[in-house]
């Protein structure tokens, strides 16, 4: 399979074009799609290629998500664009009470092929209502699959897989990563949900990360290599279902772990990872597992404030040195 260097945005458009060509029941619904090509331009070209299948809505998050769900229950395969992940709060009933529960509470009578695509994350000076990383809310809601890709190839492979799922998927796409470029396979490319990727081999420590945390981590890893510390980097990619097997294999080699995520510390996905590692891999640990995450405040606006709140490369280096006692 040949690869080219393209951006995350281009990878999204490519996955959607291929899947919408293959499967005519897929449609995209959300705000500012047809003329604007999506708030980040991520759907440019699609409205012309698939007339009538990219649907602009009023600003009505409740009904945007609910209408996707109703369509999924009646034979369609919608992708909902939430504009900003922060707006899940305006559709929380439709996501957490309805989409996540309908198959289960009706005894498995129906499938729910629904992708909720939610651009998340900070670093753009967008302040408290346009910057959050909310994945742990949905980890804590049985019935949803949670995907948080980082590199463009992951975006393409995981979006393709999500569109082929018959279960509801919430797909968090970090806003700051739209322009990131990387090698992406041409043509059909599927990364099954629930498969983590070991993106760098190392014997001294395992860094568990996802989404924007991956890019921070690869910066930190270069610095750590200069200190003689070789980190293994696992990009989790899918948080639910979680590929714990890959995590366990790595920890049985490195005996140490650091979790990195942009979401705030308390109750974040790192807490779940640390809990599982301590209950299932306690005998393999040579040091406590540390978490690198945002501070427990809303994301502030002013650049020095935002930078201070978000996790940094230095935080990762410090945590790794602590767990490796170096």
């Amino acid at each position, binding site marked *: 399979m040949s690869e080219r260097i393209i951006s995350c945005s281009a990878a999204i458009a490519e996955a959607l074009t291929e899947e919408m060509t293959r499967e005519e029941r897929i449609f995209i619904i959300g705000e500012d799609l047809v003329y604007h090509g999506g708030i980040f331009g991520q759907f440019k070209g699609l409205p012309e290629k698939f007339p009538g299948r990219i649907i602009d*809505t009023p600003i009505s998050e*409740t009904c945007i998500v609910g209408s996707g769900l*109703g369509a999924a229950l009646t034979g369609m395969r919608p992708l909902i664009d939430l504009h900003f992940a922060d707006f899940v709060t305006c559709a929380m*009933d439709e996501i957490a*009470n309805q989409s996540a529960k309908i*198959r289960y509470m*009706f005894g498995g009578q129906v*499938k729910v092929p629904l992708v909720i695509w939610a651009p998340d994350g900070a670093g753009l000076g967008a302040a408290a209502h346009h910057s959050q990383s909310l994945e742990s809310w949905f980890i804590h809601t049985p019935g949803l699959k949670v995907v948080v890709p980082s590199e463009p190839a992951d975006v393409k492979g995981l979006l393709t897989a999500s569109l082929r799922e018959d279960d509801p998927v919430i797909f968090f796409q970090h806003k700051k990563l739209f322009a990131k470029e990387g090698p992406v396979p041409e043509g059909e490319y599927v990364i099954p949900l629930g498969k983590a990727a070991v993106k760098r081999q190392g014997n001294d420590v395992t860094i568990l990360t996802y989404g924007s945390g991956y890019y921070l981590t690869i910066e930190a890893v270069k610095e750590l290599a200069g200190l003689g510390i070789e980190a293994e980097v696992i990009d989790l990619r899918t948080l639910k279902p979680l590929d714990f097997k890959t995590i366990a294999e790595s920890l049985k080699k490195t005996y140490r772990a650091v979790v990195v995520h942009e979401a705030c510390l308390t109750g974040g996905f790192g807490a779940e990872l640390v809990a599982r590692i301590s209950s299932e891999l306690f005998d393999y640990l040579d040091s406590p597992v540390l978490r690198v995450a945002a501070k427990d405040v809303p994301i502030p606006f002013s650049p020095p404030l935002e930078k201070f709140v978000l996790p940094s490369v230095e935080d990762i280096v410090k945590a790794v040195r602590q767990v490796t006692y170096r």
Partner: protein
Amino acid sequence: MPEDAETLLSLYRTMVTVRKFETLAGELFAAGKIPGFIHLSIGQEGSSAGVCSVLRPDDYLITTHRGHGHVIAKGGNLNRMIAELMGRKTGYCKGKGGSMHIADFSLGILGANGVVAGGFPIIVGAGLSIKLRKTDQVAVCFFGDGASNRGPFHEALNMASIWKLPILFVCENNCYASTTRTSYACSVIDIAARAKGYDIPGISVDGNNVLAVRQAAAEAVDRARRGEGPTLLENKTYRRRGHFEGDPQRYRDQAEVVEWEEKSDPVNRFAILLRKKKILTKDLEDEIAAKIDSDLKKAVQFAEQSEWPKPEDALEDLFINP
């Protein structure tokens, strides 16, 4: 519209079935045979029977916590309904849903919803799906007066209106939202007046007159099938039981309940009309009642003889691909 005797008797049978089902459910609950909570629609049978009588099997329906009547009127299976109420494995949802979450996707019943106003956004999706698939199906959303005060009602009417979706929004204004009087909680006397804000037809009818409901629903459904968009239909009725079985009902005088029962019982009113028309004879009335009683008795037997779900069944049905 003129109705033949067969249609009228079919409406009557549906109403009596709903009435007897709800009465039986109340008895089973009082006897401790139904766990949890149930919400009965006694006194509202004109709405469920009238609206569903104009639907096709492939039309969609979403209902509420007070939804037994709608499921029955759309053709729901009594055995599987009672079994679900009693938490059995043979129930519609294998015991995972209960009274507030009965669905039958094979009949277009997209489910009863435990969240007040939870059905609106989903019915918009069903309507949109019909439009995208270019069929002439119709989607019906039952809801109460209380739900019309929630945001999803307003978002849904707006979206259904701008896209001219084939949806019938059916408000059952039964004078109470849980324990709060509609006259206190609603800014309008007629919920149908809220349709004006969304430029769609809003019609209020006597919800205890099944023929008036049927007529209004038929017009709205025809309009929807013709691609002319949604309608808000308000069936004015009265909730004779408490919000839930066991509700102490401190918010109303029982004389009010008796007055509605005496003056405007939808089943009695329709029976009187059919007797006058000589369509319903005493013998036929008894025969219909006996048949429904027998079906319900069999449904209870079916449920009682059905297995309980295995405890570990609780871990199934979450995902298609776990």
